[in-house]
Structure formats: C-alpha cells, structure tokens
C-alpha cells in the first residue's frame, strides 16, 4: 500500500464484509503530541476468539478463494516500523474496532494520502451504510455524518453524482484550509 488512506479503505471494506451498518473512521493528526492515530470501528458481526488469535497471521483468511490475509498484517507492520502499533477490540455479534497509531514525524511513516478519495469511494459504493468520518488536525476538527446528510436529503440516494461531488469538495476545502496547522 502506498499510503494510509488506502489502508483505511481496505480496513473499512472488512467492516462491509462483516455486514456493518455503521462505520466510524476517526483520524487524528497531532503534531504537538507527535502522533497520527486512526480508528476504524463498526457494528458488524465481530470475530470470535479463534479468529481474533489468527488475525495478525498473513496466511490466515476467512475467504475460501484465497490463501493470504494481508490487510491487517500489512497495516500493523507499517505502524510498528514507525514506533506505533495496531490494536483490535472485537466482540462476536457486536462489532470490531481497530486502532492504529504512528509517530507523526517518523521518517518511515507513510503519508496519509488522499483521504477524500477514500471517503467518496466508500460512500458511493455503499450508499446504504452510515459512515461517520472525523478528522482532527491539531485544533481543527472536521466531521461528516452520512446518516444526518441522508435524512436531510430525504430519499435522494447518497451515490448521486451531486452528493458525491459535494462531499469531495467539502473534505478537500477543509484539508486545504488546515494545511498550515500542521507546521
């Protein structure tokens, strides 16, 4: 994976496979604490203890058509390479939460990448899922709640081109306006 926004897309796709109806993505970039933290949590079907034990094994997968399960092991490795770690909390039937953090200024830390693209791809391909996206850059907080937008739009599907364009422009405007906050 080239950047962390692709890892986020990958992990969120796991939540979709786990039949989640609500997926929260929370990113914190804090240069004063020197940390980049990403949390992805869902209300999907969760994992039992047996599965949880094997989740960091790159040769374990729940899918019948392949022999590797690289998503979580790759992200965990990326984190450990820069003084960070990955932690999973899961409960069968309730959901899963994945928390990963990195030393912000570590020379090997992957860039965050285009998080706006990750969010619009998720919303456009899964218009029925309630995504909650929060991104904090030092003191500036951005939040997007798809379920609130859906109520306001009253029947217009979330994958309409107009809606997708609005979300994309909204995120990129905030990112541009907060770029200097990370200096």
């Amino acid at each position, binding site marked *: 994976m080239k950047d962390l926004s692709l890892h986020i897309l990958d992990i969120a796709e796991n939540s979709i496979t786990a039949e989640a109806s609500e997926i929260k993505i929370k990113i914190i970039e804090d240069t004063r604490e020197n940390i980049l933290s990403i949390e992805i949590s869902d209300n999907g079907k969760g994992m039992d203890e047996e599965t949880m034990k094997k989740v960091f094994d790159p040769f374990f997968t729940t899918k019948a058509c392949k022999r590797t399960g690289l998503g979580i092991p790759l992200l965990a490795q990326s984190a450990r390479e820069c003084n960070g770690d990955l932690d999973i909390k899961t409960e069968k039937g309730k959901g899963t939460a994945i928390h990963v953090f990195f030393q912000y200024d570590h020379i090997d830390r992957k860039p965050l990448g285009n998080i706006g693209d990750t969010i619009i791809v998720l919303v456009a*391909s899964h218009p029925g899922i309630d995504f909650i996206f929060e991104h904090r850059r030092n003191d500036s907080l951005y939040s997007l709640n798809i379920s609130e937008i859906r109520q306001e739009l*009253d029947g217009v599907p979330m994958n*309409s081109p107009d809606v997708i364009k609005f979300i994309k422009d909204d995120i990129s405007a905030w990112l541009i306006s907060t770029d200097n906050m990370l200096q």
Partner: protein
Amino acid sequence: MARLTIDDLKKIKEKQKSTFALREGGYRAKVTVHMGTCGIAAGAREIMTSLLDEIEKSKVEDVITTTSGCAGLCAREPMVTVEILNKPPVKYGDLDGEKIREIFKEHVLGGNPVEKYALVVGSETTY
C-alpha cells in the same frame, strides 16, 4: 466542522427529486470494482474515482458502482465486472485510469464489451 450547509443539501434535493421522478427505480448498468487488499494495492481506488468522474461528466442516472472482495485473481488486479441489464457480466483485468474510462464509454454507455481488456464473460462468484 463540515462546511456543507442545510441549504446546500436542499439544493441537491430539489435538483435530484426532478430527475428521480423520471426514473423507474431500476438501474441499467452496475460496475463492480474488486476492492480486496490486492485490488486496492494495485490501484482499485483510482479505478473507482475515474468511474465516478465519468458518471458525473456524462450525466447518466442509471449506472451504479459497488465494490466486492478479492476474486482470487490477484495478479490481474485492478479488476472490474460490468453488468448490463439482461446481458452476461464481463470481467476486465489489468486496468488503469485510462482503460476504465474507455470501458465506461464503449461498454457501459455504448453497450459493446471492450474485448482487448476482457478476461472472462459469464457468471462467476466473487467473495
């Protein structure tokens, strides 16, 4: 905070409601982008953003996109499956941003599968 205001959303709602009423609810075409770890690492996200861009530009209202997991052909990623109503699905492999735009114009809009990029025609289960 999101800058989207209630007014912005109302505008979208009014605009969409009028086109919405013209539709009969069904979609004519579905494009599935294979978004497993292998697909994402090979560039599946760019495939999807190019598709969304083409859908917006061409103003079509009856094409939807979705994602699936790994289909077991990781070496041929990024892959997509194009399904046109009442036609067998077509799988494409080794794609990039340019190829998917061509497939969108030729196959999704024009109805003619693009043979040079196609891997297989017909049903196959994806996981």
